[in-house]
């Protein structure tokens, strides 16, 4: 498998390169997930989102998640990339690609990666709405 493909980027995500990094001749299934900035959140209109990260730790956690899946589902090759900075509606903040000889494992791996990223990877988003900007997710603040 080589080194874990788990990166942060400040640029738009290159899906084609992500898929190429996982696909081998033995694979019959490729599942991808993209998390995209949407135009609303909990009833508010969203204009853009700024993503901030504890970069060194976020890269370690992304690589750890890829390694975990490599142990749990050894048939699957996994790649993940998360974008940082300001993103507008429709742009991808995260992309995951999972390739496997069979589709069940590729779906499972892809879903698991995004769930673990959302739970553990030290990345934070600040939403810009018509009322201003706000960090998301810590109850009681603001």
């Amino acid at each position: 498998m080589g080194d874990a493909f788990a990166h942060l980027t400040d640029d738009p995500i290159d899906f084609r390169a992500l898929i190429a990094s996982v696909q081998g001749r033995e694979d019959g299934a490729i599942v991808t997930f993209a998390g995209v900035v949407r135009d609303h959140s909990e009833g508010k209109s969203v204009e853009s989102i700024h993503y901030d990260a504890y970069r060194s730790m976020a890269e370690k956690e992304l690589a750890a998640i890829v390694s975990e899946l490599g142990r749990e589902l050894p048939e699957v090759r996994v790649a993940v990339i998360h974008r940082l900075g300001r993103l507008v509606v429709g742009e991808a903040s995260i992309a995951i690609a999972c390739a496997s000889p069979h589709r069940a494992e590729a779906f499972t791996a892809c879903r698991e990666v995004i769930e673990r990223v959302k739970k553990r990877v030290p990345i934070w988003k600040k939403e810009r709405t018509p009322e201003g900007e706000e960090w998301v997710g810590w109850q009681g603040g603001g």
Partner: protein
Amino acid sequence: MQIRLLLFAVLREVVGSDQKPLELEEGTTAAEVWERLRREHPRLAAYDTPPMVAVNQEYADPATPLRPGDELAFIPPVSGG
């Protein structure tokens, strides 16, 4: 001993800095540093759950004593993905 405290997202904005060196007594824990930060920045009292703790880029028990040179970060609830 000296450690380095890193601050992200809302914590960076409240404290007004993305990192600061801290001079601590031997055996000080991350939880104690958090309490000190809350006293210095009353706005932090509003947050009803304490942040997670990372030491040297790994999640750590807030009750573990810090060691000289540690890189300590408080991790507000993450919202990446």
